[in-house]
């Protein structure tokens, strides 16, 4: 069965450099920086103070807020600073700096929770929360919140292994190297939701991964299927994936649970499995290091909190001075200006591009070709959004459903007039919020 999502584009996948590179282990550096905000929701409060000794896996920051996820120390060592540091999102965020003693002394409380069968759904959900797991595909939404909000509504779990962003192969390698972890995570999630329908969705360009995970499937399937999806960006965007797999459109402003689905990234599923079976919270992740300015493209298993410059240095440094460095993929990733910023929970790739490749594309003009409208997976009219944003017509932005935009970048990718459409959407969202706030005050 084939279902499709609307629109979409076909950027060159540029994955050949790292597709066949086994994940290498990167030893933790001397100093690790752990921002108190690595998830969507309320930032954590530190529960250690300057000079404290910490152990591997120890909770160093937590929050009582409903939407948050605790942060653990990825190494053993000493807290040497609690101060604002650069965050990959471009701002400065209060962070805990830990000096690594190199001993990796394990926190005594870290031990396997027992077999999945012996734990109740509520206990399993508690593990997900305590392990600090967030959406590792880039969204960084706390996993336990997603699960809890979907309890009773979700009838199907989709594990997202599309990895439709060019260059990134971290999920691909995970599917090849540890398919049982992904599958284990899916089973845990299905148990928590109390359902027997699970789908692992992978783009068709990862044939080896699809075959690999199919071999791992239980003999009788147990309600789990592996789906090969068309190669098209943004296949891995949550709403588009649900449309392709379940043939349902998530209503505006609603969560996927509204159509009975919950989506988790493959790495998130694997992290859940590890947390339950080993007791290990989220301390490391796979990062694809690639791009034209990198000497040796690699997939690395990196402790969270490792500064980007350390990661790049571990791949043999830069081949040439990079003109642009991205955290994330080229379609949605964030351009970096300070490479002391750390790898955070949601950093799936670090890409460095040569000066030459930085296309300082000058905006030309809209020739009304309609291509942005054709490719928009949310069925918006980006050219009109752009125009109304320019004219500050927030009323029209509202009418043209600006807030539906998922900022996937398809429109700006295709636009022959080289308009910075996504940038304009972001500005438009700010203007719209300001207008809404003003309207509220006026009342």
């Amino acid at each position: 069965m084939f279902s499709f999502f609307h629109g979409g584009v076909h950027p060159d996948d540029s994955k050949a450099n790292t597709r066949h590179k086994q994940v290498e282990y990167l030893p933790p550096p001397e100093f690790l920086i752990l921002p108190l905000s690595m998830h969507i929701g309320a930032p954590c409060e530190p529960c250690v103070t300057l000079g404290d000794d910490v152990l591997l896996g120890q909770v160093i920051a937590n929050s009582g807020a409903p939407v948050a996820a605790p942060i653990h120390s990825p190494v053993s060592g000493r807290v040497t600073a609690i101060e604002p540091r650069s965050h990959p999102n471009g701002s400065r965020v209060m962070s805990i700096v830990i000096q690594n003693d190199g001993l990796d002394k394990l926190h005594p409380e870290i031990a396997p929770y027992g077999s999945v069968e012996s734990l109740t759904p509520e206990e399993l959900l508690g593990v997900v929360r305590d392990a600090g797991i967030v959406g590792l595909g880039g969204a960084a939404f706390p996993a336990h919140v997603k699960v809890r909000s979907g309890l009773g509504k979700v009838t199907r779990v989709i594990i997202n292994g599309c990895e439709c962003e060019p260059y990134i192969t971290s999920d691909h390698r995970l599917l090849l190297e540890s398919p049982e972890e992904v599958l284990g995570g899916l089973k845990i999630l299905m148990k928590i939701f109390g359902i027997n329908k699970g789908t692992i969705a992978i783009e068709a360009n990862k044939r080896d991964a699809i075959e690999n995970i199919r071999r791992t499937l239980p003999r009788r399937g147990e309600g789990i299927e592996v789906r090969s999806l068309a190669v098209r960006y943004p296949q891995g965007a949550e709403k588009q994936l649900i449309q392709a797999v379940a043939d349902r459109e998530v209503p505006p402003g609603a969560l996927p649970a509204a159509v009975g689905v919950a989506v988790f990234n493959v790495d998130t599923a694997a992290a859940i499995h590890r947390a339950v079976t080993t007791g290990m919270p989220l301390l490391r992740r796979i990062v694809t290091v690639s791009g034209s300015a990198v000497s040796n493209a690699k997939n690395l298993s990196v402790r969270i909190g490792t500064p980007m410059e350390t990661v790049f240095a571990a791949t043999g440094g830069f081949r040439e001075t990079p003109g642009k460095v991205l955290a994330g993929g080229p379609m949605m990733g964030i351009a970096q200006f300070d490479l002391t910023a750390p790898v955070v929970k949601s950093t799936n790739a670090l890409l460095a591009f040569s000066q030459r490749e930085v296309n300082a594309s000058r905006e030309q003009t809209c020739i009304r070709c309609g291509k942005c409208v054709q490719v928009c997976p949310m069925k918006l009219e980006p050219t009109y959004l752009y125009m109304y944003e320019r004219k500050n017509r927030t009323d029209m932005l509202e009418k043209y459903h600006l807030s539906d935009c998922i900022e996937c970048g398809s429109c700006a990718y295709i636009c022959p007039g080289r308009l910075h459409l996504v940038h304009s959407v972001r500005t438009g969202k700010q203007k719209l919020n300001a207008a809404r706030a003003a309207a509220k005050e006026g009342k």
Partner: protein
Amino acid sequence: MDAPLTVSSSPHIHDEESIRSIMTDVCIALLFPLALGTYYFEMKALYLTLVSVLSCVVFEFLYRKALKKTNTIRDMSAVVTGMLLAFTLPVSTPYWVVVVGAFFAIVVVKQLYGGLGKNFMNPALAARAFLVVSFPAYTGIFTEPTFHEDGFSFFSTPDAISAATPLASLKQGVLPENYDLQNLLFGEIPGCIGEVSALILIIGGLWLLARRVITPRVPVSYLGTVALLTFVFSPAGVDSLQFMLYSILSGGLMLGAIFMATDYTTCPVTKRGQILYGIGCGLLTVFIRYFGKMPESVCFSILIMNTLVWMLDKAGRARRFGVRPFAFLFKKGG
């Protein structure tokens, strides 16, 4: 870090396609009819096209220079306008008339409204309409194509004879006597430089489709509407199928449907809007052919529809993602 890192908004990669590459593709597609036009109407056809292109480019350059705006001749859009303008004129048109037309197209229609993407009428068509109204003596004379039985000569000029075009017969409600469908397909009929052969225009259109410059939505809905209406409302005593085929193959309809109505700037951007636009063009074309006096059905239909593009874009907006069709019917009060 010695050089600062560039910080810009995502996405950080871009498709190869640019305005220039699109316009170049259109020019390539237009070379097919130009070659045939030159064969039928001698070198004058080529010269006329060159004069038109050159004047368009020069006017664009001068206008933008005078107003201290960015130079845009590199985007090739003026070349496209120049070629299209020449294609809509008979080969006997004097050069100076073409230059006037180019001025009207580039300066009055395109640049006064802000340049590429801002004009609300197709520049080439608007210029043609202007010339037809202002200089009917020059634009109404059609030349019989030559077939070069004695070989192609670079110096002969075709005789301008006031030949009756197949369209003129159709307007009388009869099938043309002197020309059969094959003549229309291959362009062995009197007419304007670029519009005589339906076949070569379709080949150009296929190139544009293959290069993804255009989608079939506008041409197919336009031609389909004309075909349907002429089939259903064919004059008494005339074979409907024949009448329909003659109708869609004659009078610049192919050129209009494939190259003029698909002009980005002056057609809707939404999918449904484009289909409505094509249907509208078709309705008007047939209406004007049946009830109008001038042989300008395609030209005026497209120009009229051009002015409705904003409305069509509104009407053609897609159903919102995640909202059921006809959701407004189910909406709860408030």
